[in-house]
């Protein structure tokens, strides 16, 4: 139930980063999935592809790292580690 809301927050951040960098497109997103985040990489990717459709992140490569550390302080969370943007000649 909470995936849609989480994806919304994630895509907003990706968009903010792309805006700041003057990017035309987002080429890739690297995320870290906490051991208790209730996501598997394939499950996360399904939601990501859906959320990115029609945005400048459509078609972006997704790299997911699934943590197995249930004692990690962010074990329940999802962390965006980096965003790969195409600055489209504006840099």
């Amino acid at each position: 139930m909470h995936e849609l809301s989480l994806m919304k927050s994630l895509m907003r951040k990706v968009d903010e980063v792309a805006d700041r960098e003057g990017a035309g497109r987002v080429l890739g997103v690297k995320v870290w999935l906490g051991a208790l985040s209730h996501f598997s990489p394939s499950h996360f990717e399904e939601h990501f592809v859906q959320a990115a459709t029609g945005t400048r992140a459509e078609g972006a490569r997704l790299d997911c790292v699934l943590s197995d550390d249930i004692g990690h302080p962010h074990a329940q969370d999802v962390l965006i580690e980096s965003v790969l943007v195409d600055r489209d000649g504006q840099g």
Partner: protein
Amino acid sequence: MSEAREIKVDYLARVEGEGGMTVKVRDGKVEDVQVRIYEPPRFFEAFLRGRKYIEASDITARICGICPVAYQMSAVHAMEQAFGVTVGGQLRELRRLLYCGEWIESHVLHVYMLHAPDFLGYQDAISLARDHRAVVEQGLRLKKIGNEIVTTLAGREIHPINVRVGGFYRVPLREDFAKLRKELDWALDAAVKTVDFVAGLPFPDFEPQHEYVALLHPEEYPFNEGDIASTAGLRIKKDDFLEHFEELHVRHSNALHGRIKARGPYFVGPQARYNLNRDRLSPIAREAADRAGLGARCDNPFKSIVVRAVETVEACAEAIRILDAYERPDRPFVDYEIKAGVGHGCTEAPRGILYHRYEVDEKGDIVSARIIPPTAQNLPAIEADLRHFVTEHIDLDQENLTWKCEQAIRNYDPCISCATHFLKLEIDGD
């Protein structure tokens, strides 16, 4: 020239609240208030189709982690009506006991953890605990006793597993309840003190008038049985629910909106139960209500915290009465014959009446299911109340108005209650 660049972010993606509120203002006056529920539809009614009748109570229990017992009770009562079987005696008493546990769990959670911090000027129960540790500890212990009732009787406190059509899978021995029975003496006393405590909170003058709807039983404060009655004189059998009530889809919400076909919005929940069943409360609960100044009828939604506390007293007193007279039934469930039919269940979830209707075929497979939860029934009335409330506070700045609206929404203990700390208030207009 195109250039790819990797930007380090380290951003924690957060789950946002599933609720939002839009206020439309024109010429300084509130024109419309909409409570939006983003929580996507879950299609429980669709995936019940084709399942066995015996699965309905356990599947629907997953709808809510706070009130799974309500879903189980409405489901089994509906199936029992379809099969023409009645559950009486100690099994009926145990079902009331289970509901006592759920009301204690749910009401105490709301009173202590969600609602009281608002009145005392704290963001949440954690900050409340810094200054009022004993109060929060009392709430936690009381809630735990509610959990223990559900665990002892039904296997576990969240999504219990022991309820079935005809009764239970297993019934506890009298000695299984021994420790719990002792704890309940403390719980009853703590619940009475809770009423006295919340009665002293500062309440704004705000008394919207609603038609309240609750179960009405000839002798009991209602849990599982009774006619459906209203303060405007409605009195019907649960079988006729859909003739008098309807749900409408509105553009701004994923939750359907309930209304009485003939009149419009109505209200279910603790205030509705109290306003219709006050004289059926146990003497100790009624005395607590009198001391708190609740009177014959409570219209102020901010005072719903007092009504929840009174109902917690009722649940503790009722649990003690049931346990003191408990004799383990010989069999954990009564026999019945599976046959094709239609059954209706309407029971009092902590947040108000929860209606189920099932049609089953001759093999006991579910042909159709309909579930109408209390929060959906209340949404139009909540929006109407908030329109009045925002009008009175429209001069506040955005931050303060958002805080006031979060508080006001929590009065109704909606199932999105936890999410309303993240309420996104949009003011549209001049």
